[in-house]
């Protein structure tokens, strides 16, 4: 068994060590989803149409956005490891730190995905949301391809944000992560589709990376984009991915030079 498949297995197993904490984490994920879901149910109680969205399309968006979030976002501990000096443990081993975390991320995501489907089944059974599926195979393909790109984008963005800890190890890099988390909470489109914002603001989101993490992939599911717009979205995603990749590599290269293994 290769070293990374071992990492994958360990990552999977470690989630079950503190089972109660794991259950609470899942409950939290469900609560934050239900908070958004019930908000939109309330909005549609007295309205048949909100902007260009029907009740069915917006509730479908909310569920699909959560599915996208499950596959795109992750929570790695690299900032804490830099700040505590535990990064040493990896630097002396024949493993790539990026590949190590990528593999751990895969293990976490697979588990999250399984629980997402279990929770979705419960939601379907109890709440019966009016979900629909894409009519065209191309929408499925674009949807899945954009999720893969978004997952890579966030992986490198997250590493970049955590690399800040090399220069500012205060609180394990949490202050910058907190700020980024606050921004992502609203600006990715996880709680609402970004095209409900005024046109001038929405135009900005076409240039910024945030919407490409949730809104644009979920938009493919809803068949919101076609023709040249599809090309533009993928091109923008590739450009942002390249930017994040380049700056992550650069930050880690320079960061390792200033790394002093404080705390060891």
């Amino acid at each position, binding site marked *: 068994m290769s070293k990374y498949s071992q990492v994958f297995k360990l990552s999977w197993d470690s989630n079950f060590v503190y089972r*109660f*904490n794991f259950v*609470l*984490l899942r*409950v*939290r994920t469900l*609560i*934050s989803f239900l*908070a958004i879901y*019930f*908000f939109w*149910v*309330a*909005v549609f*109680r*007295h*309205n048949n149409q*909100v*902007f260009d969205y029907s009740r069915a399309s917006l509730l479908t968006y909310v569920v699909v956005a959560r599915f996208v979030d499950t596959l795109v976002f992750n929570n790695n501990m690299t900032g804490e490891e830099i700040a505590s000096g535990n990064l040493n443990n990896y630097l002396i081993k024949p493993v790539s730190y990026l590949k190590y975390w990528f593999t751990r991320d895969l293990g976490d995501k697979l588990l999250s995905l399984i629980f997402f489907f279990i929770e979705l089944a419960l939601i379907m059974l109890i709440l019966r949301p009016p979900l629909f599926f894409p009519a065209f195979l191309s929408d499925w393909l674009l949807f899945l391809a954009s999720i893969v790109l978004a997952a890579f984008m966030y992986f490198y963005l997250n590493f970049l944000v955590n690399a800040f800890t090399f220069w*500012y190890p*205060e*609180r394990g890099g949490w*202050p*910058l992560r*907190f*700020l980024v*988390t*606050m*921004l992502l*909470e*609203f*600006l990715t489109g996880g*709680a*609402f589709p970004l095209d*409900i*914002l*005024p046109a001038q603001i929405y135009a900005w989101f076409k240039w910024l990376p945030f919407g490409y993490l949730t809104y644009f992939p979920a938009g493919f599911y809803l068949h919101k984009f076609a023709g040249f717009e599809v090309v533009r979205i993928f091109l923008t995603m590739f450009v942002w991915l390249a930017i994040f990749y380049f700056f992550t590599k650069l930050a880690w290269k320079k960061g390792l030079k200033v790394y002093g293994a404080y705390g060891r």
Partner: protein
Amino acid sequence: MRFKLYLIYWWKNSALSLQALLASRLSSILFLVGKFARFGLFIGFLLALKRSITDLAGYSFDQLVVFFLIYNLFDLIGQIFYRGIYWFRYEIISGDFDFRLTKPINPLFQILTSYTDFLDIPLLVLVVTMLVINWPHVTLMQNLVFIAVSLLSVLILTAIHILVAAIGVLTTAVEHTIWMFRDLATMARVPVDIYVAPIRIFLTYFIPIGLIFTVPAKVLFNQAASAFLLVAFLLSIGFYLFALRVWRYALRSYASASS
């Protein structure tokens, strides 16, 4: 005399918290920007929604802004004064909680007030200012009832933090429990009345988020019946006593396993 002792203890802890903040200025700035961004972006979202719908379940957008401000008011009060709970897990798993028990100050008070979060004060100032500007035209009686209901909100808020501490002692799980409360509390950024009946009932009577965040605002809009306020009063007292009971049970079960 005891009150003075507790006040000095809190003052000393708060001074140390402030010093810690001043020692890490960049962290403080990043946290502040994050907190203001979260606040501003939700207001922005409400304004965006206003372009398509005239009201939300009968509430105008001006009213929704007041509900959101009052949600922030109590959310910030909880975070400013009871931030210490977020670090309580470490004390349990390390056994450091033993030191709290040996001091002549109530351990619950020590845990809850071990850290005063001054970073929430600038946002609190903004929220209070916006509330003053958007304060609806109400009678003196409504203002007095609002103050009374606000005290109940703080009482429930305290009770919830006590319950989290008790669960921490019993299970060593603290972070997820307090964050679960915070996640649930986000549902009260808008009045809990807008939700379907089972959710509304759950958020009012079981985990009384609605009593903390929604009822004070409803008093201002003259939408809280006297009978309901009486029920809210009894529920608040009952919930607080229940939390204290659970805490005492947790303390009896504490085994100091890691020390």
